C-alpha cells in the first residue's frame, strides 16, 4: 500500500516561483549602518546591536528591537514559491496529523495548551467531512472497488472509526456552483431577459481551480476582470454545512470542524483565503486533506481500507443519517454531466442552449472542435435555423500550464488574437492541411480553466498509478481508469431554478454571500523597495 504514496510527486503542475512572497527586505538606503549583530536580551527578545571594531555595543540606546520575521501558511501557500517537495511534504503531512490531533483533543484524550499554559477553550465538538467526486473516483480505482463500496466504507471510516457526526459528498455545493455559474454567463452575455446585476467581461473564466487563481493573482493581474465570481463547490459546501449544523445542533460555528477531501494541494490554500473566514475567525473549511493523505492517515492508524466494513445499505440509511436534515442527500453523492472537473462548461452551454430554444424556438446542438492537444477543446453551440446551423455561442476547455500560457497571452490587450489557424505540426508532416482550433478567447463566452492536465481527476493529490511489477500501469492509462470510475458514478441533471430556490430558502436573501467571492492582485515584491536577503534556490 505504501507504493501508492509517493512523496516526490507533490506536483500541482504550475511550477513554484523563485522569490519568496514575504521576503526579508534589506534596506540598502540606511546609511548609518555599520557592522551589526543580533543578540538575545535579558527578556529573551532579539535585538540588533552595532559592532564597533569587533566589540558589540550593548547599551540600551545602541540596541534596536527586532520584530520577528513572520510567515504563516496562508502566505506560503499563496506564493506557491518555495514550497516544493520537502517543505510541502511536511505541510501536507501536518494536515492529516492535525486532524487526528484535533479529534483526540475533542475526545478529551489530549488537551492543547496555549502559550500561557492554559487549556484552549472551545475544543471542537462537531465534526463534519465533505468529499469530492474526484477523490472518491481515485479511491475506487486505487482499491479496485466500486464507488458505492468506497462510499460505504467511508461512512464506517468517518462515523465509527474517526468519530465524525456528518459526512457528505460535495455534489450539493457543486450543483449550486453550476447553477449560479450558468446564470452569471447568461446575464453577462445578455442572453437572458432579466436585468443584469453584474456585467462581466467576455469571456468568463472558471474560477474553481485555486492553482489557476493563485497564478493569475500573482503573475497575470490583467486576467482578473474575466474571472467568474462564483465560489467553488468546496467553499459553498462549507458555508452551507456550517449554517445548517449550527442551527440543527445549537452549537456555534467555531465549534464545528469541517474537513474536506480534495484531489489537490492547492485546495488547502483556497480554504485559508481571507475571503473565506468570517469576522469571528471561523473558516468555512477548516482543513483540506488530499486523497493521498487519506491513504496516509489509514497507514498511520494501522487501518486497511479493504477491511473496513461497508456501512449497511449505505446509499439510503448510512448516507442519509450522515447529512444535515435539510440536505438533499442523493444530490450530494451524485455527479453531473460534462467534464470530470465538474462540468462547468457543459452546464453553461446547456443553459445558453435552453435559453435560445425557449426564446427563439430553435433547437440547438453542440459541436466539438479539438485543439492542438487533448487539453484544449473548443465547443460551439449552434442553433438550427431553417436547416442552417448558426453558431450562437462558443466556449473552450483549457487545461494545463502550457495552454494557460496561450490563454493569458491572448487576453492581454494589444496582442493580436487568434482566429488564424495554425497548421498543426503533425498535419504539416503528413501533408494534409487539416486545421485545428486555436485559442481565441475574445470569441468565447466561457472558458473552463484547470491547472492540471486532464483536469481535477488528475490532480496533484490523487492517488498515483501503481508501479510495482506486474501491477504497473502507465500514467495515461491510469488517468483513463480513474476517469472511468468517475463516469460510472450516478449523475443527475441540474435544475437551475430548483437549486437556486433551495439555496435561497436555506441561506436567505443575501445569496451573494453564499455564492460570490472576489479576487485581487497579489502585490509582488518590488525591487525598488530593497533587495531580498535570500532568493530561493540560492546556493550558499
Amino acid at each position, binding site marked *: 500500500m505504501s507504493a501508492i504514496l509517493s512523496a516526490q510527486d507533490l506536483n500541482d503542475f504550475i*511550477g513554484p*516561483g*523563485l522569490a519568496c512572497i514575504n521576503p526579508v527586505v534589506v534596506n540598502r538606503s540606511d546609511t548609518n549602518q555599520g557592522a551589526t549583530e543580533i543578540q538575545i536580551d535579558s527578556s529573551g527578545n532579539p535585538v540588533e546591536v552595532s559592532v564597533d571594531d569587533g566589540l558589540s555595543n550593548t547599551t540600551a540606546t545602541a540596541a534596536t528591537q527586532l520584530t520577528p520575521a513572520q510567515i504563516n501558511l496562508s502566505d506560503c501557500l499563496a506564493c506557491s514559491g518555495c514550497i516544493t517537495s520537502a517543505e510541502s511534504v511536511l505541510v501536507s503531512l501536518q494536515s492529516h496529523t492535525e486532524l487526528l490531533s484535533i479529534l483526540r483533543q475533542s475526545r478529551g484524550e489530549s488537551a492543547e495548551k496555549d502559550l500561557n499554559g492554559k487549556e484552549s477553550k472551545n475544543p471542537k465538538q462537531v465534526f463534519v467531512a465533505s468529499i469530492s467526486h474526484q477523490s472518491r473516483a481515485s479511491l475506487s480505482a486505487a482499491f479496485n472497488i466500486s464507488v458505492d463500496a468506497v462510499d460505504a466504507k467511508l461512512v464506517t471510516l468517518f462515523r465509527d472509526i474517526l468519530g465524525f457526526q456528518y459526512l457528505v459528498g460535495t455534489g450539493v455545493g457543486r450543483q449550486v456552483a453550476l447553477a449560479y455559474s450558468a446564470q452569471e454567463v447568461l446575464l453577462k452575455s445578455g442572453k437572458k431577459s432579466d436585468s443584469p446585476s453584474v456585467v462581466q467581461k467576455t469571456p468568463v473564466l472558471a474560477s474553481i481551480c485555486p492553482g489557476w487563481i493563485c497564478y493569475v493573482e500573482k503573475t497575470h493581474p490583467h486576467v482578473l476582470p474575466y474571472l467568474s465570481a462564483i465560489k467553488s463547490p468546496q467553499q459553498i459546501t462549507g458555508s452551507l454545512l456550517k449554517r445548517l449544523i449550527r442551527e440543527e445542533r445549537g452549537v456555534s460555528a467555531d465549534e464545528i470542524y469541517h474537513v474536506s477531501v480534495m484531489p489537490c494541494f492547492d485546495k488547502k490554500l483556497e480554504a485559508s483565503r481571507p475571503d473565506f473566514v468570517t469576522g469571528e475567525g471561523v473558516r468555512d473549511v477548516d482543513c483540506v486533506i488530499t486523497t493521498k493523505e487519506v491513504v496516509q492517515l489509514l497507514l498511520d492508524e494501522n487501518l486497511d481500507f479493504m477491511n473496513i466494513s461497508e456501512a449497511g445499505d449505505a446509499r439510503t440509511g448510512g448516507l442519509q443519517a450522515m447529512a444535515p436534515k435539510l440536505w438533499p442527500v442523493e444530490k450530494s453523492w451524485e455527479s453531473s454531466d460534462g467534464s470530470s472537473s465538474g462540468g462547468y462548461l457543459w452546464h453553461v452551454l446547456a443553459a445558453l442552449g435552453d435559453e435560445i430554444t425557449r426564446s427563439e424556438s430553435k433547437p440547438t446542438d453542440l459541436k466539438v472542435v479539438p485543439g*492542438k*492537444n*487533448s487539453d484544449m477543446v473548443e465547443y460551439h453551440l449552434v442553433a438550427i435555423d431553417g436547416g442552417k446551423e448558426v453558431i450562437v455561442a462558443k466556449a473552450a476547455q483549457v487545461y494545463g*500550464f*502550457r*495552454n494557460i*500560457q*496561450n490563454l493569458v*497571452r491572448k487576453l492581454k490587450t494589444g496582442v*493580436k488574437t*487568434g482566429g*488564424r489557424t*495554425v*497548421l498543426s*505540426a*503533425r498535419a*504539416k*508532416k*503528413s501533408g494534409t492541411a487539416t486545421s485545428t482550433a*486555436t*485559442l481565441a478567447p475574445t470569441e468565447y463566452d466561457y472558458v473552463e480553466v484547470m491547472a492540471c*492536465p486532464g483536469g481535477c481527476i488528475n490532480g496533484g493529490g490523487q492517488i498515483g498509478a501503481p508501479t510495482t511489477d506486474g501491477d504497473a500501469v*502507465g*500514467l*495515461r*492509462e491510469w488517468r483513463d481508469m480513474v476517469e472511468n470510475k468517475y463516469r460510472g458514478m450516478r449523475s443527475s441533471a441540474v435544475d437551475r431554478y430548483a437549486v437556486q430556490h433551495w439555496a435561497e430558502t436555506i441561506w436567505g436573501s443575501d445569496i451573494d454571500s453564499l455564492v460570490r467571492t472576489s479576487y485581487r492582485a497579489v502585490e509582488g515584491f518590488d525591487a525598488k523597495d530593497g533587495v531580498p536577503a535570500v532568493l530561493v*534556490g540560492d546556493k550558499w
Partner: protein
Amino acid sequence: MPIKQVHSIPAHVDRIWNLAPHPTLPLLATATSDKAAQIYSLNTYFPVAQLDGNHKRSIRSVSWKPKTGGNSEVVLATASFDGTVGIWIRDNDRFVQDVGSTGVIDDSGSIGLEEWEFVASLEGHENEVKGVDWSCEGTYLASCSRDKSVWIWEADESNEEFECLAVLQDHTQDVKHVAWHPNEELLASASYDDTIRLWREDDDDWVCSGEIIGHRSTVWCIDFDKMTGDGEARLVSCSADETVRVWSRQSMTGKIGSRDFPSTFRSDPVSENWQQEAILPQRHSGPIYAVSWSGRSGRIVSVGADGLLIVYQEVNKGEWVVIAEEEDAHSVFEINTAVWSKKWKSTAPHGQEGGAEKDETNPDNEEIIITGGDDGNINIWEVTIQK
C-alpha cells in the same frame, strides 16, 4: 602553428555572450550586454544591422531560423535577460546582398544598415532567458531560463504568432543552454543541476525522454554531432568541471516525431538511453563555457574561462586528440562562445592579411572558428592542419 587568427572585430564595448552564424547566408548574429543584437557580414566582417528598441536587458543568446523550402524570410530569435525572446525578420527590400557587396549603398554612396522588423515577443519565463534554438526544420523554437524550465513554442507561417506547446520543468536548477538534433525532433538542455536532459514529443505532449548524468558541475553548453547516421545521435557537452564529454544514444523506445522506430509495445513511453562515449583530453583549467561540433570536418572546439581555445579531432570512434591549442585567445579575458562556420569567400578589407581564397579542392579551408569573449571582440580563426 596549427591554428591562426585571421581577423578580429572589435565589435562591442562589453562582453559578447553568444554568436550564431546563419546556416546558409554569410551573416553572423551577436548577443551582447548591449540590449541590441548585431548582425555582421561574414564576407566583409562589417556590421550590417543593429536590432534594438525592444529588449530591456542584455541579449544572452541568438538563433537563426533554418531556411526551409520556399520561405525566403530571414528570421532571428534573441533570448534576453529581461525574460523574453524576441523574433526579428529582415526587411527583404533593404538588405545587404548575399555575396560580394559591402552594405546597402544609398544615394550618397555611403553604406547604410539593413532594416529589421521586430515582430513578436515571447513572454512567459519568470526571469532571465539563457538559451534559444530553432529545431532542424524551423518548426519549433525552444527557450530555457534561470526559472529552471524549458519552453517549446510553435510559430505560424508569418512568424508573428507563437503558441506555447510545452513548459518542461524537470530540471532542478537554472537551465543554461538548449540545442536541437540536426534532423530529428529531439531537444537537449544543459543545466546548473549538472545534468543534460533529452526531450521528445509523446502523443500530444512533450516529455523528458532521457537524462545524462556524469558531469560533476554545471553543464554550460551542448552541441549535437551533425554527421550521425539515420536514427543515431551523439552530443558533446562542456562543464564547469573542466571536462568536455561526448555522449551517444544506445537505445530508445517510442517514436520520434512522425517516424516510427522499432519498439516492443506501441504504448511504450518514449525514453532513451545515453552513455558516455569519451572524455576529451583535458586541457582546460577553469569552467568551459562553450563547445561546438563542426558539421563539415567533425572536429570539436571548446573555449572557457581560462582563455584557451582547443580543437579536437576524432581519430577513431570514441578516441579524440587535441590538434590545436591557443592560449589567451582573447588576451586576458574569458571566452564565452565558439562556433564553427562556413568560410565565406572574402576579399581582405584594407589590405589586412588573412583573407585566403576559398580552396575548392581542400575542404579544410572551408571552415572557420568564430569566438566571442569578455573583451567584446569577435575573433576569426582558421585551423591549418590537414585532416
